[in-house]
């Protein structure tokens, strides 16, 4: 391993591994460079237009009457008084929906407006369109709904018992996933140590800073145009068209500047409502969630209960794991099925285990809907597999570091789903990268004994994360265009929600065409102008959309070179692109401009708009054994954490985090570091403070996310073990950044107290309880 780049920050570094493909580092002009994030100037100036900032004076204000019942039949909705409120234009109910009243990216089980019944508190029942917010508020109080309460269920295990209240037709089982390898029952008999434990995690709120918002209107051509805060405009377009019973090409969704998403803006939170009102009333309609509404009505992270049994040999080799995962998807599926599978597939962590049995079952309850949230279930299962590793190490007298290094995946390892890992397996490198820091931290801990009631602890967490959707097609497409003036444009449907996908895609295009990124026009996430790039989720845009952009750029480049070869009467192989010109390698003076090439190609009738496409090489998982190729590449990471636990108050201070991530190739190291810092801090919230209690958590007063004062010293280390199928070797980092932090913190608390906490968050109460146990 070589250090190939001076640290971007004092505390951060990039380490490159040249294992499988040879990367000519010096030849990159834009890849691996800290290009400024697109749109950051507008954001600094305050001129970036978020959905709630769009001015449209004639826009109607929309408000939703939401269910105050957990589970109830709707007998009658009386809107007559509400519609008489001055300024109230219309009150819509399910009957007004002209198309199919169903939403949901995987399972179409959500209603835009409740029809026969409500399934949770917060279900939308009626939609008010009014001239002013005041009128809408008044009308809201005038709607009368007659409910007949139905029995409800809030525990996912109870929901599967015979006789449990049925939330959807067909039963309360959302779905299950099984993974089987070898013979775990037999293997456990040969284990020197076996540890068995139950872990639980709670609901977590995404808490993006921008509450959901959108505005819709009919344009002059009769097209319904929706501007919204979204992670997946092309999905929104399809579901809105279905709701309204119109053709998809009559709906145009444009992503506004989006103030974070973390998975929750994959669901249609406002798009259907603004679309319905604007379409039926033929007037612009706006909806802006209050923070309270975002808390009440948007998806949460799935609470999981994980029973985990692992066994190892005397020398610390994992022989078998047996895992049973129960998840609560709440009243609707959202991305639940994806979490069922991903949690199962990732339950062994980044370790090779020859004998595996995993079952994962999620059920519907009358709780709030759970959906996608940064990591899709992996942050929850990582708590379990990483605690288990430490428990095994302790029983065997091994260090947490050694047991991980002994078992981690390598090139040639086979995963629990039977996939052989052939390249870019950087877990070992991330462990090695934190090794000196780990040993330094252990040594430092011994010297810190100044306050008897403050205990220091050191912990490690590791993870793997499959890039893209699990065992299913999830393609992206993109276009590169050369216009007659010689200008280059990049068209991508990939929604940049702040993580910086647009910057990365621009860098990839700029590298291939050897042109300054500022010279490329960028058209992003507008369904009329761009084709689908799939969802901004699953850490997939750099790898998947990056490949689509790269392919489009290569095709355009080839056409440019072919034309230039004719004009310059030079062999194509002798030509190079440079800043919008093509010239021969030996004669840099006599070149031909992109403009001239474009004019010539146009006259000859040659296309100058090229599409790239990429769909990762995956196979569906076998329903019985889970065998298959769920992902074509994986990201890996290890975090080291140092904590201080105040045994008098239960307060845990995270002092330092060293986070090493194998990202394949950092297209933009500064942005990668930014993702890592972000994930670590979200991980601290997940570990220590964040839990959403249905019915109790209503606003930011009841739910605390980390602030600047909660941030420890963070050292971010980038490992580059290039992925041969990735654009310039890149994989992804958005979700991986979050995953190891919480398990590492819990392992550090155990190290400090000698008592282990098995539930997240390790809040003051849980830590105090552990402190009391430690003292007895």
């Amino acid at each position, binding site marked *: 391993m070589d250090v190939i780049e001076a640290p971007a920050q004092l505390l951060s570094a990039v380490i490159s591994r040249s294992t499988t493909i040879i990367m000519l580092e010096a030849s990159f002009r834009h890849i691996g460079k800290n290009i400024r994030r697109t749109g950051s*100037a507008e954001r600094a100036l305050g*001129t970036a*237009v978020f959905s*709630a900032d769009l001015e449209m004076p004639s826009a109607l204000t929309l408000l939703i009457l939401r269910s105050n019942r957990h589970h109830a039949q709707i007998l009658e909705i009386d809107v007559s008084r509400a519609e008489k409120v001055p300024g109230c234009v219309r009150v819509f109910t399910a009957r007004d929906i002209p198309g199919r009243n169903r939403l949901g990216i995987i399972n179409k089980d959500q209603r835009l407006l409740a029809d026969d019944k409500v399934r949770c508190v917060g279900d939308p029942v009626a939609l008010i369109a009014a001239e002013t917010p005041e009128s809408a508020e008044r009308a809201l109080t005038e709607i009368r709904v007659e409910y007949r309460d139905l029995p409800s269920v809030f525990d996912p295990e109870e929901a599967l018992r015979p006789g449990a209240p049925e939330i959807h037709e067909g039963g309360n089982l959302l779905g299950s996933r099984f993974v089987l390898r070898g013979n775990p029952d037999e293997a456990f008999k040969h284990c020197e140590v076996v540890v068995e434990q139950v872990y639980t995690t709670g609901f977590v709120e995404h808490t993006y800073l*921008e509450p959901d918002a959108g505005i819709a209107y009919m344009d002059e051509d009769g097209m319904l145009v929706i501007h919204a805060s979204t992670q997946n405009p092309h999905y929104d377009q399809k579901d809105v068209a279905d709701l309204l019973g119109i053709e998809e090409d009559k709906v145009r969704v444009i992503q506004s500047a989006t103030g974070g998403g973390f998975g929750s803006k994959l669901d249609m939170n406002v798009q259907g409502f603004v679309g319905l009102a604007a379409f039926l009333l033929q007037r612009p309609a706006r909806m802006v969630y209050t*923070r309270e509404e975002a808390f009440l009505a948007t998806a949460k992270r799935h609470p999981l209960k994980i029973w985990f049994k692992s066994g190892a040999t005397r020398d610390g080799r994992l022989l078998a794991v047996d895992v049973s995962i129960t998840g609560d998807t709440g009243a609707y599926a959202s991305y639940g099925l994806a979490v069922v599978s991903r949690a199962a597939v990732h339950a062994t962590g980044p370790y090779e285990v020859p004998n595996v049995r995993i079952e994962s079952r999620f059920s519907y309850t009358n709780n709030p809907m759970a959906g996608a949230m940064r990591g899709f279930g992996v942050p929850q299962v990582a708590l379990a597999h990483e605690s288990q590793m430490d428990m095994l190490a302790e029983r065997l007298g091994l260090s947490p570091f050694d047991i991980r290094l002994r078992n981690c995946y390598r090139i040639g390892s086979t995963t629990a789903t039977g996939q052989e890992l052939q390249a870019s397996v950087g877990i070992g490198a991330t462990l090695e990268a934190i090794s000196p820091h780990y040993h330094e931290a252990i040594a430092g801990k011994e010297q810190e004994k100044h306050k008897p009631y403050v205990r220091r602890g050191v912990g490690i967490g590791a993870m793997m994360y499959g890039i893209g959707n699990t065992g299913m097609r999830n393609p992206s497409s993109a276009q590169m265009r050369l216009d007659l003036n010689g200008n280059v444009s990049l068209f991508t449907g990939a929604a940049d*929600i*702040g993580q910086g996908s647009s910057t990365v895609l621009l860098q990839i295009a700029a590298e291939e065409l050897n042109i300054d990124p500022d010279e490329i026009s960028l058209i992003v996430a507008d369904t009329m102008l761009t084709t689908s790039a799939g969802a901004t989720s699953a850490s997939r845009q750099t790898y998947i959309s990056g490949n689509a952009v790269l392919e489009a750029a290569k095709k355009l480049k080839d056409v440019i070179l072919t034309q230039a070869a004719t004009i310059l009467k030079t062999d194509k192989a002798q030509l190079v692109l440079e800043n919008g010109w093509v010239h021969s390698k030996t004669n840099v003076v006599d070149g031909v401009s992109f403009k001239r090439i474009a004019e010539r190609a146009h006259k000859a009738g040659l296309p100058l708009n090229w599409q790239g496409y990429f769909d990762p090489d995956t196979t569906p998982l076998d329903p019985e054994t889970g065998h298959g190729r769920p992902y074509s590449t994986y990201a890996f990471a290890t975090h080291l954490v140092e904590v201080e636990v105040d045994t008098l108050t239960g307060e845990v201070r995270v002092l330092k985090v060293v986070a090493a991530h194998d990202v394949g190739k950092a297209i933009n190291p500064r942005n990668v570091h*930014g993702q890592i810092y972000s994930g670590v801090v*979200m991980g601290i919230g997940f570990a220590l403070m964040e839990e959403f209690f249905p019915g109790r958590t209503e606003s930011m007063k009841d739910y605390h996310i980390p602030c600047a004062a909660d941030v420890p010293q963070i050292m971010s280390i980038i490992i580059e073990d290039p992925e041969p199928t990735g654009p310039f070797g890149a994989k992804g980092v958005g979700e991986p950044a979050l995953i190891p932090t919480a398990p590492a913190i819990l392992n550090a608390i155990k190290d400090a107290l000698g008592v282990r906490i098995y539930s997240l968050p390790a809040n003051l109460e849980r830590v105090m309880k552990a402190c009391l146990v430690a003292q007895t």
Partner: protein
Amino acid sequence: MDGNMLKIAFQLNGKEVSIEINPEDSALMVLRDRFHLKGAKEGCGIGECGACTILVDGLAVNSCLMLAAQLDGRNVKTVEGLVHQEKMDILQEKFIEHGAIQCGFCTPGMLLSARALLDENPSPDHDSIVEALSGNLCRCTGYVQVVEAVEDAAAERES
């Protein structure tokens, strides 16, 4: 309702302005809807997140909790007023340079809290910066590059 209207006058981003408002209007609402200054954001509406931070007489305040009436006679600055003679504030430049902006929704508030700090204390230490930014929540950046940007802005002004 007109009978209750209240006329206020204040300095907004360097210009004298006056406007008739409802006494119950929040400062944030008046700035966004009446002056069309959309830089200040509503993230929570209850003074927890800091996305609506503005400067009033140089102090960083949550404009969602402040009545517009309280702006009367004051000197008010929003993110739109940070640009001086068509040049960005050093903090804006450093936020961009350090990658301190991801989704950017919290950015205007962060910038103004940082501006208030640097105006009061041109060479703050790390802890003072962290303290000054602790009322501004961010879910994207993990704050590291934000703090670095403010440190760098302070260092540049010193040199």
